[in-house]
């Protein structure tokens, strides 16, 4: 029974990933081949630069990318490439898309990991404290702060941090990636943005679980409040928190695109934005696909963790 539920979860996410990939590929195809705008020109500008351009260069790009061939055939060739992993080469840098993705992905991964860890390092203690003492001073202050921070777009948080730490205090560099200390401000920006929402989710999960009768009952039976918290509250509160973690990835997405651009950090987001501006189709396609797959993967992990935590769903029982 357990194996079946797990298998079903994996299958569902797998199908989702395939459908998302299909939809993304089709979307990109439509954008590139059907919409107006001179693609070849844009690409050539990206590759050679505006000043160096000549008609021949644009034409060579056009031939190279088969922009003029019949539509249906192109669509299936397109899909074929996508699904066999042949993502091609960047039209701007001529390096393979896979290697570019790898390089940028590694950078983003480091950034995301640190940012995520930072956000939980802040959100967990404050969330638990506020959840155990709802209405108290810690709860009210964190509620106010998190509302304020959640009202700021991530680039603003970044700008404020730059203003404080780079411009005024001069402690940290505002841009680039030439060493580990360049990671601090971007990771902090991401982390702060994420923690504003995580704190609330954790607080609510802890507060709701703490109110559950079985927690009180465990103390009536003789457990100390501390043990009751660890053995009962934490475990039950983890389910909504784990569900939220998957959604955080979506927010992380918005975060790192903007943050990397602001800090000029060479990760996936920065790469994607530059590719969009210069119409570097293979890179756009590759980046979009990677993000789509990652999203499905994170959702799958979250599903599995939830199943593990809540035995009711594990046995396929109606909860």
């Amino acid at each position, binding site marked *: 029974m357990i194996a079946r539920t797990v298998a079903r979860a994996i299958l569902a996410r797998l199908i989702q990933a395939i459908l998302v990939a299909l939809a993304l590929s089709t979307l990109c195809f439509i954008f590139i081949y059907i919409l107006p705008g001179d693609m070849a020109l844009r690409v050539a500008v990206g590759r050679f630069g505006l000043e160096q351009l000549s008609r021949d260069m644009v034409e060579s790009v056009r031939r190279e990318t088969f922009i003029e061939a019949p539509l249906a055939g192109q669509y299936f060739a397109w899909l074929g490439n996508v699904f066999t992993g042949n993502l091609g080469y960047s039209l701007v840098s001529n390096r393979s898309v896979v290697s570019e993705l790898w390089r940028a992905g590694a950078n983003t991964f480091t950034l995301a990991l640190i940012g995520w860890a930072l956000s939980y390092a802040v959100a967990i203690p404050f969330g638990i404290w506020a959840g155990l003492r709802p209405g108290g001073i810690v709860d009210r202050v964190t509620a106010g702060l998190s509302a304020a921070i959640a009202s700021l777009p991530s680039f603003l948080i970044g700008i404020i941090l730059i203003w404080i730490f780079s411009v005024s205090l001069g402690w940290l560099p505002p841009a680039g990636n030439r060493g580990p200390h360049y990671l601090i401000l971007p990771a902090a920006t991401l982390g702060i943005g994420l923690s504003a929402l995580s704190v609330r989710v954790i607080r609510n999960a802890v507060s709701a679980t703490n109110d*559950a*009768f*079985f*927690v*009180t*009952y*465990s*103390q*009536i*039976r*003789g*457990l100390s409040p501390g*043990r009751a918290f660890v*053995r*009962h509250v934490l*475990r*039950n509160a983890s389910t909504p928190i784990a569900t939220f973690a998957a959604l955080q990835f979506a927010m992380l997405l918005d975060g790192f695109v903007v943050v990397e651009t602001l800090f000029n950090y060479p990760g996936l987001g920065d790469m994607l934005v530059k590719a969009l501006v210069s119409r570097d189709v293979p890179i756009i396609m590759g980046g979009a696909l990677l993000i789509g797959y990652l999203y499905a993967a994170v959702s799958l992990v979250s599903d599995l963790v939830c199943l593990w*935590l*809540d*035995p*009711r769903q594990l*046995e396929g*029982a109606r*909860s």
Partner: protein
Amino acid sequence: MSAPALVIRGLVVRDRQGHGLVRGVDLTLPAGGILTLIGETGSGKSLIAQAVMGLLPDELRAEGAISVAGREAEAGDKPALRRLWATHTMVLPQEPSAALDPTMRLLSQLAETAGKTNATSALDAVELSGAAARAWPHALSGGMAQRGLAAMALVSNAPLLVADEPTKGLDDERVGIAIRLLASLRDRGKALLAITHDLRVARGLGSAVAVIRDGVIVEQGSAEAVLSTPTHAYTRAWLEAEPARWPPRPRSAAAQHPVLVCEQVGFGYTPRERLAERVSLSLRPGEIVGLCGVSGRGKTTLGNVLLGLHRPHAGTVKWIGGADPYADPPAQRRLRRQYQKLHQDPVRAFVPFRSLARQFADLKPVLPPRALSDRLPELLDRVRIKPSLLARKPAEISGGEAQRLAIVRLLLLEPRVIVADEPTSRLDPIVQREVIELLTELARTRNLGLILISHDQALLDAVTDGELLL
């Protein structure tokens, strides 16, 4: 001579506005003894249990002295009362599903306070061993969960056990089991304070009984004395509310054409999950037929099948004149009003956020002209509800008032058949008697067919002309 298990002196519980919800209660429970506290909803009986455990809601204030096995504490001193947990006081909770951590196996939960050996032997004593002991809470049946909680009370060393509504919502057979479990816990040396509105608990446990009304104890004494020769009028009303004590009802005589028939009906939630097969019954005007059975066997679903709400996968349902509501949609539309239902939770049978007056006004399109203005006032009067109550919203009235208003709503529609689905199971016994008497009288005077669904065998025996067991 050991100290009494529980002594309450002068307990007063007030709400924010200063109203006394419990007004000067004195109770004594000797070591190893039993006391059953009987009262209606809102009488304050649960508040007494909460006060003893130090679990009163924050907005209430308590005063008075509480002493458990010799340990004294002020009723308002919650921390002191909480320190008595597990060593002096223990609770047998109402709802097993709420009391057990859903993510932990039963044995583990027991073992965390008692150690594995004690836990296993306690579970053995209540006949939950092996696979049942290692089960997840949601996999336990209601009866098994009940026994699991009893095991938790067993492993506790506390001399005082408080059981709040131990038989709430239970079928007849499980009520018997619950009472036996409680008695066996007392046999192990625990003193038992049982709080209930169910007289069967008082009778089954015997020993001492106290009756509480509006926050004041109106009568107390030994069970034999109070239950057979009560001195207070309220206690008498309570005892007479038991269906077994009701005067016999004149059975309907005339052999008229049935208003509702089902033949060889089979139904279930889905075609694969079948609940029952080959069920047949017929209902004549003025007749009362009972539908009984353990919960989950399909009583409500059968009621819905008869009302044209749930299509059976086999057999036929016929309304008056032989019309089949499932095969003949125009007939169903024509006769819709005449086949009505009374719900188990009357408050939820009204739209939560709309005033009751407006909800009655909403019925105008389906009623004959001027029915509302002509008949509503007299119907309200008949069920003893003041018209001013209609200005309120459903959450602002009691269960008994809501059920009577539901009956008024039905009567406006002038039904031929009423399917009453556990109409009184959420009501206190005295209110239950009023509502059932109202229903039976309506069946008689207006020649209505009534199908009464209930798990309370005594109720059905007292009132129905025939019964169907699912």
